């Protein structure tokens, strides 16, 4: 029995088209697998774009293309969209049954998208959205804000170690509103943008960011520094901030 070609497909949970195509896929001899985060996208990944996140349509193909070009350059990315456009890595959802085989045969690998862009499906450009999340509207990148908070707090560790008699002043300095203001920017941007990220390829990164934000939030929002928790500000908060910064910088690699 010839081995079935595995086709992984990614779509939003409300999109019934992929499941409706399952019989066709079976008939074509494809193993028709819904892509789960953590799966390897290779050898073929179909993305039904745009995706609906409950509020609006998001065009995710651009971000996936850059991700695959960098991390899985041999993957064949095929965007399934709702328009009659001719492109080596695109198939019209209404023509998928007729055209897919030929496209699959000829579609170049994702490395192509290191310099090119896939067909744009017209929804909210997630590449742009991710750029705005990471870089902000001016030059306030998330990573830079993280770094700023870290820079504001980390000398406190030296101060406490070398001049422990200053502990009360160190506590007061941590509790200065200006130190925590930056956290507010970080937190609100995360809250505003998080709903858009569900169908992007960085599930593990976003999940870790979510957990880190949850860990950090009580420190910055629920309580002040005190004699009881002062050590924790340097042994817990600082490493978490550093990790958060490194994750954000990792995401920046995928955004031009």
């Amino acid at each position, binding site marked *: 029995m010839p081995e079935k070609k595995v086709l992984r497909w990614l779509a939003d949970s409300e999109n019934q088209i992929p499941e*409706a195509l399952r019989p066709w896929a079976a008939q074509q001899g494809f193993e028709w697998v819904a892509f789960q985060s953590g799966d390897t996208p290779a050898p073929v990944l179909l993305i039904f774009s745009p995706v*609906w996140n409950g509020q609006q349509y998001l065009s995710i193909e651009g971000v996936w293309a850059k991700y695959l070009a960098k991390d899985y350059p041999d993957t064949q990315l095929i965007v399934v969209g*709702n328009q009659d456009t001719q492109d080596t890595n695109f198939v019209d959802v*209404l023509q998928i049954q007729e055209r897919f085989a030929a496209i699959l045969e000829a579609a170049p690998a994702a490395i192509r998208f290191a310099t090119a862009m896939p067909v*744009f499906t*017209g929804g909210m450009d997630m590449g742009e959205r991710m750029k705005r999340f990471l870089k902000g509207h001016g030059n306030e990148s998330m990573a830079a804000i993280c770094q700023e908070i870290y820079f504001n707090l980390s000398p406190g560790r030296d101060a406490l170690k070398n001049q422990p008699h200053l502990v009360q002043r160190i506590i007061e300095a941590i509790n200065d509103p200006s130190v925590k203001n930056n956290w507010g920017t970080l937190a609100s941007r995360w809250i505003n943008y998080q709903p858009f990220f569900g169908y992007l390829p960085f599930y593990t990164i976003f999940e870790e960011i979510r957990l880190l934000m949850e860990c950090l939030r009580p420190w910055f929002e629920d309580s002040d520094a005190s004699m009881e928790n002062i050590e924790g500000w340097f042994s817990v908060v600082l490493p978490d901030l550093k990790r958060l910064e490194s994750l954000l910088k990792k995401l920046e690699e995928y955004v031009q």
Partner: protein
Amino acid sequence: MQQKKKEAEKRLMIIVWKWRHINNDTLPLPVGSDTDMVQVNGREYQWLMRYDPEDIEQSIDQIRQIIKNDYPAYKVQLFLHLNHNYEPGHVEQINASGANGKPPDNCILFGNRDHLYIHHANSPLGLLASNGNMEGNFSGNIISAVEKINEKNVIKSTHFDNVWNHYHHRIKLEAYQLKEDFIRVLWPASLSTSAPDPTVLASILHRLSTYADKIQQNASADALTFSLGKAEEERSQTNFYGSDIVPLFISLSSAIRDFIAKEPDIQLSKPAMEPLREAFHNLLNALPENTYA
């Protein structure tokens, strides 16, 4: 679909507001004048006009004349403030066809309440707050839509673009969403061997029908009036695509009517869906803006 470069387009945003009656140290209106032009930073042909007329009835004609005589090649978005006693009737008046002056491409009647996108309270890139310096409070952060570059006050381009796009893209978004939705509902039904859910089908057909009706009710030869949102304050008219776009709306409306007129089993076929989708596509391709702000 294309994403048009926003920097090159000639744009004029006119905000009619009580500029002289609010605290405005940074950007006072020139003494003896009721208008002022502030350039968008880095954009040669993009401006904000601040207008505070004494007589709102005369202001309607004046605005049309300004657009026709001074900015004929510009896209114009006009914001009329409710507290100046502007009313929906003034929106119709300013958008009326006729030789007297030129209507704006987009006219928004906005109220002095915090839920409106043009205000800082609703957007980190808003334009207005209660003080005329155009500096406001978003989520506890004070932000200004104005900055000084080489001693000259300019509007920050990010703020200008944000408000412009927000009121600019919603017509296109409505069409885009309907195009996506109808395929999402009908195509799986077409592919499936089991009977489609009649409620779901009826719902999408109703939406298409309502949309077609809206186009037909508001279209004239060279203008198209749409109500953007539910709130009366955000009523807007769009005719800034010109007479080359209006026929595409009309075609879409016809295509919808043709589609709805078909038998249900025919509707679920590709030959029926494709022409309708193409009509959507032709319109969407001709609209230069994005479907998002």
